[in-house]
């Protein structure tokens, strides 16, 4: 058995699961509201129940998103020349030929940008959702909230499935981070050379 490196703490793993499940629930119920899908009643019983699920899943998601600030924000705001190189080659994701990606830290450039996008869209969708839910009597506020809630929703339905695909099927060996939080040291050296160097495990 090779030496394992801990990439995600237990708290991070639990929080990510809470976030993933609440996010999925929000997207599904969100589509239900967007297109008035009566079929949703087979799952939730009524739109009144679905509304409660959507609102409270939103609260859970928001708290969960806030908790990630302590885990990823600093890293997601740190960039160097390798990040620009990574962006120029698109992380090698779209290339059919195997390419050598620039050396990355604990999170790669795409993951950092993804995190910032989710953080921003998450803040927008949380604030606007709360306004739609709790504030009435201000027509302009409701209309702006309704519009921005749906704009942020658009980012979520594009970014989240892409994130899930890249973290599972597209990159074998990464999904275990969400379950165990650990990766074999050889894997870590290949994927996060700069982080390994920082940790003195090169």
């Amino acid at each position, binding site marked *: 058995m090779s030496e394992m490196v801990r990439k995600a703490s237990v708290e991070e793993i639990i929080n990510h699961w809470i976030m993933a499940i609440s996010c999925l629930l929000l997207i599904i119920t969100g*589509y239900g*509201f*967007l*297109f*008035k*899908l*009566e079929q949703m009643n087979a799952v939730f019983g*009524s*739109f*009144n129940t*679905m*509304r409660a699920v959507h609102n409270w899943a939103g609260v859970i998601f928001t708290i969960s998103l806030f908790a990630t600030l302590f885990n990823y924000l600093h890293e997601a705001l740190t960039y160097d020349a390798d990040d620009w190189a990574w962006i120029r080659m698109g992380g090698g994701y*779209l*290339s*059919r030929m*195997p*390419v*050598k*990606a620039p050396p990355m830290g604990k999170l790669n450039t795409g993951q950092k940008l993804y995190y910032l996008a989710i953080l921003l869209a998450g803040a927008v969708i949380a604030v606007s959702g709360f306004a*739609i*839910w709790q504030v*009435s009597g201000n*027509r302009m506020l*409701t*209309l*702006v909230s*309704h*519009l921005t809630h*749906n*704009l942020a*929703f*658009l980012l979520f*339905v*594009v970014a989240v*499935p*892409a994130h899930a*695909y890249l973290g599972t*099927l*597209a*990159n*074998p060996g990464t999904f275990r981070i969400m379950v165990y939080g650990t990766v074999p040291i050889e*894997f870590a050296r*290949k994927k996060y050379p700069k982080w390994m160097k920082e940790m003195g495990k090169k």
Partner: protein
Amino acid sequence: MSTTETKRKALLISPELCIGCRGCQTACKSWNQLPGLPTKNTGTMQNPPDISASTFNIIRYSEVPSQTNALRWLFVSRRCMHCDDAGCMKICPAPGALFKTKEGAVAFNRDKCIGCKLCVAGCPFDVPRYDAKDKIGKCDLCAGRIAEGLSPACAKTCPTGAIKYGDRDGLIASAKKAGYAKLYGEADLGGLGALYAFKDAPKIYGMNEDPAIPESVIFWHKVLKPLSIIGLGGVLAGALIHYAAVGPHKDEEEGK
């Protein structure tokens, strides 16, 4: 099943015929079993001051003196306009909460209303109201009555014909014959189910001259809703194609 399609029904409201008796308000409360609420004198006959979840229609009393007429007192029936292209129905996220009857009335189902109040923002006429249980309440053109071929309670009780109910085309034709070149609501929002025969500019009667569904709601409906399907579908299809054509990332091949 009837072989002829039900013609769209409407109300024709003629303020010049209204004597301000408010029989329509009383008949509405009576038929719809709506409670009377404590009110207060604000120095006008308009009472209650506004429509509410238990007051589906009111007569708006406005004093608009002009140079030729020092005492001009206008009585205008205010209620849901039963738009053909209804903003409330467009923005409503709950199926069946707001619906069109075959006569063209915008009716509601309290049990299916989820109390989100988005319809208030979508309505160009500030009509939807909410009760203490956060359920919508508004004029539904007496959907139960008109389904049985009766006229709405307000039109039935109006003693002067200021509120007339009938086939929408017929009402428009009769008003044209009576000398009204253009009716308010003839073409707005796909045509309103409440038509007004005004002798003056609608603004004088306190009406919105150019009612429309908010631009943001139209943009959301026409652009964002399709994009949310295209976006999700595109990513899922992209992932599938990537998996099939490129396949999962293989570390061994890197840097060869």
